[in-house]
């Protein structure tokens, strides 16, 4: 079976600004693939190119088996897209929005009505079908936007930061909908800058300044980047300890995390031993030390710092 999305050497420049810089990746059918990165990293630009809204400056790619450059209109028939900015019609009711997008995707008559009902049901918007869209809370608007993007039963759905500005509970609801979609065999391509959401994905690509700096499953990324894990240190006082540790030659990274410090040592260093020795020479009381599994956030921070050091 072919990939849902496969791109090679994809580049997009705006004047002199390189928004997407020679990226290369594949998305398997039926997986949740996530683009994780800070604002302005090139996530939206990539998604727009994949959906045929922007022509790439160079490079090539396939989406659902169609050529990105030559057949964007065919791609549009088999994908669903949810843009970063809410872009349904505020002055239409919930049902009118659904009806409109159904019509645009060529549905009509009984089939359109059935799909509308189904979508209202799934998005849990049945009682609100006659509400003006403008009056819906953000989380519900996003559910409606997703419902509109799914009406024509696309093979691949592209969701550009679907949960930004949404409260945590609605976010979890939204991810439940995404899980359901994947169970039905739909491929989901999603961008986010929430680390916790990235954990829900099958595979993710870290994108930074237009480049993919890491790609893999969440576990793979954690193992590969921080194989030894992270040493969490509780001590008192915290900030002087951080300053002392940062100066140590055997430390590659040190950062405050909650009420403790997260330390990553350089290759071949016995970190626990070194920390203990160093802190006793200073008026710092060491309370506790523990090896922990790195979170994606640790991975992300570490990778970006490495990238910045280049």
């Amino acid at each position, binding site marked *: 079976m072919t990939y849902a999305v496969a791109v090679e050497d994809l580049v997009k420049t705006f004047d002199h600004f390189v928004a997407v810089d020679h990226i290369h990746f594949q998305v398997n059918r039926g997986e949740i693939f996530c683009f994780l990165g800070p604002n302005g990293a090139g996530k939206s630009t990539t998604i*727009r190119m994949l*959906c*045929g*809204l*922007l*022509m790439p400056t160079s490079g090539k790619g396939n989406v659902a088996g169609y050529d990105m450059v030559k057949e964007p*209109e065919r791609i*549009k*028939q088999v*994908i669903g*897209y*949810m*843009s970063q*900015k*809410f*872009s*349904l*019609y*505020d*002055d*239409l009711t919930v049902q*009118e929005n659904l*009806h*409109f*997008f*159904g*019509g*645009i*995707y*060529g549905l*009509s008559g009984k089939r359109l009505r059935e799909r509308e009902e189904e979508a209202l049901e799934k998005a849990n918007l049945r009682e609100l079908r006659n509400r003006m869209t403008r009056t819906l809370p953000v989380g519900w608007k996003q559910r409606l936007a997703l419902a509109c993007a799914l009406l024509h039963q696309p093979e691949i759905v592209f969701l550009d930061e679907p949960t930004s500005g949404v409260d945590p509970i609605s976010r979890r609801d939204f991810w439940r909908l995404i899980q359901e979609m994947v169970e039905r065999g739909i491929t989901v391509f999603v961008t986010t800058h929430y680390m916790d959401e990235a954990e829900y994905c099958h595979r993710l690509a870290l994108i930074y300044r237009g480049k993919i700096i890491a790609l893999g499953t969440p576990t793979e990324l954690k193992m590969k980047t921080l194989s030894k894990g992270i040493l969490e240190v509780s001590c008192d006082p915290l900030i002087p300890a951080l300053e002392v540790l940062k100066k140590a030659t055997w430390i590659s990274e040190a950062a405050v995390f909650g009420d403790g410090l997260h330390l990553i040592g350089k290759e071949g260093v016995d970190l626990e031993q070194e920390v203990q020795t160093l802190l006793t020479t200073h008026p710092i009381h060491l309370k506790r030390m523990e090896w922990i599994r790195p979170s994606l956030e640790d991975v992300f921070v570490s990778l970006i710092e490495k990238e910045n050091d280049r």
Partner: protein
Amino acid sequence: MNLPRAWAIARKEFLHIYRDPRSLGLVILMPAILMLLFGYAVTLDVKKVRMTVLNYDGAQESLSFIYRFSGSPYFQLNGFIQDEKEVRRLIDEGTIKMALVLPNDFSQTVKSGKKAPVQVILDGSDSNTANIILSYVQAIARDYTQEKTFLKIERMGRKRPDPPLEGRTRIWFNEDLESKNYFIPGLVAVIISIIGVLLTGQVIVREWEKGSMELLISTPVRKSELIIGKLFPYFFLGLLDLILAVLMGRLVFDVPLRGSVGLLLLLSCIYMIVALAMGLTISAVAGTQLLANQMAMIIGFLPTFLLSGFTFVISNMPLWLQIITYGIAPRYYVSIVKEIFLKGSDFSFLWKETLVLIGMGLLGVMVATRSFKKELR
């Protein structure tokens, strides 16, 4: 081309219009207000000119001369004054437009058969009106002089002579020279321009500004479907306004509609396509709704108002401006509407204008389709 898809767009546009009180008001109230304004308020007719008289003479002859003014429908006597300084004050205040000054020997001079000088003071701040008043005054003076001359001849015992020339004027098409008959047909063109250019000028740029266009172009909808779907509601509204304007013109203002209504509707539809295409093009190239509005004002609305022959006669314009008017569609449409309304012309007189409009319509739709890109900008 998938018609249900175009219809989905059209349906949505109808909903937008229906839910937006501003555009709904523009569609329904604007034509009515314009008609009332131009039908009742704006008039080029000069009637009941307010005037005053400074009569130093006061004898019978002077009074009969003054009666020729006060008895005419064109003048309205605003009382007599005693002092020349009063004239200045009344004109400054705007109470009067004209003052008539008769010298103290007026009656005597007239009776003795000599030439009696009469002073006429006009408020020239509105030169057009002053000119018209002047011609009224001259006509009255001429009549009076002729009358007196004949009387003199009769008194000398001779037969009253026939004047050597008598012009018998007949005015065609607008028999009473009423400005409403001149304005209201042209107003139809202005109303269609407003719907076509001003309102339609928003339809695409609004979707860009709100972000909904990004979603729309991610769907398989085709350019042609989008354009036809967006044009249809405005075409329909334009037609509605056209019918409203024609009905109001006929029933409220009694403007004669001498030609065929069917022809008027048909040619109006052609003009509507030109206007809509222009509006869509503006909407596709303008970056913001504000800019689209200004562009629509400047290249759509103002030429219709000023250069189409609706308010100002084209043949009185300087040559370079006349040449420009050949390039704008409303010029042809205003002339079509006026001819059908007032002259009752049939197609054999209007085919040239019609051909130009068809050409402009085809070109316009082509440009509109080209200037809309189904890609992010």
